[in-house]
């Protein structure tokens, strides 16, 4: 049996020996992690909704009348290279589109001459889909000699940005609070475990076990408790998602990368919680 397998077995043996303590710790940590999971699920669904809205975030550059086609193509080329795909919409195309939206061109015939300007619709690269970047790009493009006006729905974009930032802040705050909670729960569990196993640890120390031999199973135990708790929290979250999905909205579950990071972060927190406990407790050995 390898060293790692031995320590994992010892950790498992310790957990099994103190089943009620372990189960209490798993339940407490799973409860705390479930709170984070709910926020992550909300975030995942909000991001999904925002990304479909984000697809519609574009900058419209209205051009002056009578601009040479070569100049338009040059500007489109620059925008393509710098900011994202640019599509030219001629005066006629704008007119046709408007007519389609109105459901007929009878009214438009009364107007006489086509009053709509030609434009370029710029779909920005994802890194520019926030207010500050869009405003900067709009200002730059407004300075072009062939451009009449630039619009990008600034207030709407600003609100969307604020909402996204607020969500990230709430997630961070919840994650930090829960991380502290998990650390304390695991640390206290390991402290109790050490107290419960005083005699075993004393025997091991008398037989010559060094700090590493004594601590490793306890560190693994903390990580295992948190990992199992994360699995339980994910399971509960999946069950809740399956129940709420389609009632009335279709929901997405956490992307697998998020789920893996969730479990990995929990394992690290469990490890850190054990370390926190052992820094003080194992000095006695």
């Amino acid at each position: 049996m390898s060293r790692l397998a031995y320590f994992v077995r010892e950790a498992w043996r310790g957990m099994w020996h103190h089943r009620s303590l372990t189960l209490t710790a798993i339940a407490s940590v799973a409860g705390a992690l479930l709170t984070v999971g709910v926020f992550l699920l909300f975030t995942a669904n909000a991001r999904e909704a925002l990304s479909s809205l984000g697809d519609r975030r574009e900058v419209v550059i209205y051009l002056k009348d009578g601009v040479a086609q070569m100049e338009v193509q040059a500007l489109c080329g620059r925008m393509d290279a710098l900011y994202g795909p640019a599509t030219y919409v001629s005066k006629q195309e704008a007119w046709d589109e408007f007519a389609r939206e109105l459901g007929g061109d009878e009214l438009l015939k009364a107007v006489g001459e086509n009053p709509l300007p030609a434009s370029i619709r710029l779909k920005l690269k994802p890194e520019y889909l926030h207010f500050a970047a869009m405003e900067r790009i709009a200002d730059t493009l407004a300075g072009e000699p062939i451009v009449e006006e630039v619009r990008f729905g600034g207030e709407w974009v600003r609100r969307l940005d604020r909402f996204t930032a607020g969500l990230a802040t709430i997630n961070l705050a919840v994650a930090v609070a829960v991380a502290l909670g998990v650390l304390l729960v695991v640390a206290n569990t390991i402290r109790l475990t050490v107290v419960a196993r005083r005699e075993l640890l004393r025997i091991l120390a008398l037989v010559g076990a060094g700090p590493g031999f004594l601590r490793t199973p306890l560190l693994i135990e903390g990580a295992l408790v948190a990992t199992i708790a994360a699995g339980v929290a994910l399971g509960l979250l999946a069950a809740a998602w399956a129940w709420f999905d389609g009632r009335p909205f279709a929901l997405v579950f956490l992307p697998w990368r998020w789920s893996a990071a969730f479990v990995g972060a929990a394992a690290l927190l469990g490890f850190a919680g054990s370390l926190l406990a052992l820094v003080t407790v194992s000095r006695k050995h």
Partner: protein
Amino acid sequence: MIRLTHVSQRYGAQVALDDVNFEVNAGDFCVVLGPSGAGKTSLLRLLTLEALPTSGQVQVGSFVSGRLGRGQRAELRRTLGVVFEDFKLLEDRNLFENVALALRIHGVWDQATLERRVDEALTRVGLPGRAHAFPRELSAGQKQRAGVARAIVNRPELVLADEPTGNLDPAAGEEILDLLFEIHRAGTTVLLATNNQGLADHLAARGTRRVEIRDGALIEGTRQ
């Protein structure tokens, strides 16, 4: 092998050892006799560096108290074999796991080596083929044999035995003493602590060195 230089050990106002100077040479079989509370346990705790002396210096092999961190204290204990009065076997593990524990602590992880060395140790203490037995399935004498197997599996140069026959009937106790003599004959230094005057006399008759511990002082000599 062991040298105590002006060692005192106090617990508050209580003096467990008072300015003790004491040496055990390699190859000795030394019996420390003293009533309960006389300081035997304090002495053994100092020798395993479970406790540090209030003053003075304890030297075991090449390890000297006062300059050792936790890692080095563990290293010292790995050079010793310790036999306890209450065996201190891990009840939820079979004899193989109990004895292999000492080897693993020494860094032996190869399964074939573990099996061979544990088998050798159990055979040496008269428990061949009992590797899969759990402590609860053994008599007190057999448990102590297993304790001795764990103490000697790493072939230590020094074995400390704290009342090794205290929980045993006379026949089982005699078997354990025979085992300790056999280990001693093979070249291992043995220090045995007991509060049993009859046992100390019996051991002295078999040629061991005797030291009495009384009121925190060590007194060399045999008393018949």
